[in-house]
């Protein structure tokens, strides 16, 4: 009960911070702030940052819970790279960027990446913590390589370079980008909300969860699908943004505990706050030069990953 009270307090606090950040992010920028600029350039960018943040925060919760892996993050396990490759593929066959068509292809390739990673890292019915990350590295490398081949052999480089996709940016987010992302995010969130109580029981391990009435394979498959939808929708518009899905759920868990329903809701809001903040930093830090938001999150997130890595390794007695 104490945790539920804390969830409300933290959730509301994050929500208020989010409102402040929205105001800040709408008011700062290079161009003069007439209503057309705000409505057509800054507002869609702000809404996109919120959407991507909600997606990454909750996708991190889903991946960590369903794989029982404290180190899981959409970018680290290769789901994001799979989605980015799909978006580039979609554009290469003539679909316009920031469209539902490109997002759909990103969801498909991202699912394939997820399936490959899970299949490679399964042994004796459980998914190994470190193998998931190693498989994620390979899938990400494959995705980046395939992307650079497609981009360098087509005329796509003019609009979105390889580095746009590998360290994401909100600079090309517009209303059609926002419209292409929200349906997948909405479906992913609804799925996640219904799966949350079963994700709690997965903490017992597959056998324990099954003995307690959880259809383990189905719950895990649906949770991974939801994570793919929540990730790919954003990646197709803004590229790969790493570490948000890793850091936000951990930070939220420290305050409100690991129970998944509260964790999902608060991490979704927390993801939006972190990304909006990161984007504001990306725009203002070296004004008038804009740095990619993905590098802001990586610089802040990588040290946290090191700490978590050491903790996970100590718990498992080393990985020789």
């Amino acid at each position, binding site marked *: 009960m104490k945790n539920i009270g804390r969830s409300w307090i933290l959730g509301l606090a994050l929500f208020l911070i989010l409102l402040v950040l929205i105001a800040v992010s709408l008011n700062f920028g290079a161009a003069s702030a007439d209503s057309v600029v705000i409505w057509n350039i800054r507002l869609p960018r702000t809404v996109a940052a919120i959407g991507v943040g909600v997606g990454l925060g909750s996708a991190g919760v889903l991946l960590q819970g369903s794989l029982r892996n404290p180190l899981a993050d959409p970018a680290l396990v290769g789901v994001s790279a799979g989605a980015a490759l799909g978006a580039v593929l979609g554009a290469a066959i003539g679909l316009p960027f920031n469209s539902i068509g490109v997002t759909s292809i990103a969801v498909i390739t991202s699912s394939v990446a997820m399936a490959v990673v899970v299949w490679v890292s399964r042994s004796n019915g459980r998914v190994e913590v470190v193998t998931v990350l190693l498989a994620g590295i390979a899938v990400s490398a494959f995705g980046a390589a395939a992307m650079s081949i497609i981009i360098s052999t087509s005329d796509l480089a003019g609009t979105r370079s390889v580095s746009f996709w590998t360290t994401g940016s909100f600079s090309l987010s517009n209303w059609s980008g926002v419209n292409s992302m929200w349906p997948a995010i909405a479906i992913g969130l609804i799925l996640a909300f219904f799966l949350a*109580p079963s994700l709690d029981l997965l903490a017992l391990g597959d056998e324990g969860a099954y003995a307690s009435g959880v*259809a383990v394979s189905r719950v895990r498959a649906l949770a991974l699908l939801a994570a793919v939808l929540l990730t790919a929708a954003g990646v197709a518009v803004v590229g790969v943004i790493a570490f948000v899905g890793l850091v936000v759920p951990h930070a939220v868990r420290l305050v409100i505990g690991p129970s998944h329903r509260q964790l999902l809701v608060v991490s979704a809001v927390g993801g939006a706050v972190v990304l909006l903040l990161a984007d504001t930093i990306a725009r203002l830090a070296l004004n008038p030069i804009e740095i990619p938001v993905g590098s802001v999150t990586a610089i802040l997130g990588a040290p946290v990953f090191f700490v978590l890595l050491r903790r996970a390794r100590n718990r498992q007695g080393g990985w020789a």
Partner: protein
Amino acid sequence: MILVAKKCTVSGENGQFRLDRIDVEVGGGEMHAVIGPNGAGKSTLMGILSGIIVPDSGTVEFMDAPLGDLSVRELARSRAVLGQELAVSFGFTVSEVVAWGRAPWRGTKEASSDQEKIDLAIHVAEIEPLCGRRINQLSGGERKRVHIARVIAQDCPLMFFDEPDSDLDLVGTRQLEETLRTLHQGGRTLVVSSHNLSWISGLSTHVILMGEHEVLAAGPVREVFTSELLSRAYRTKISVAWSTDARGHDFAICTSS
């Protein structure tokens, strides 16, 4: 018979069997001990009887209907399982873990008595002082008792305990014995595996003796706890003598030589 397994086979790797055409019958209200040497197939037997492992051939029937006909949730309202895995991911509290025992009853009429059953389970497993703590901060024995409470809260007529005494000290084992007797006297059917032969012989009504992937003998405790059968199962000379503990329960003193 509440549970009947017929000609169940589970294949392992390299064409070997983990279980080879075993037959087992468990009557309502009985308390079965599953004993046998390491690798004989005790956990696999518990697995097929509890529906966690589906046998490659053969049938398992619960209350005269195939176990496989039950949905995962129906199964979880029929039987509870204490496995050997004690680790719980993330920092869940003891109260949260015990409450998971009620998960299969969510949305049913029984859910109205959730809190009552959780409180009772916490009382029976004697874990009141642990409730506010995170389960990962507890010792192995304490974690075991938390999981025992979770399984009691599940409130099923049939209960499986796979080596419940393995992480417990002398006092913990004593408490566990009380807990299992309470459950048995409450009319539940129990299937309990253990390596502590003397302890389990004083506790159970029936014994399933495993040897090399098959059931070597099954029946009332006195009929199976014999020097001849145990020696055959463990492939070493075992002598059996009977004694009575302070509370009047007969138990077998088994010594190998």
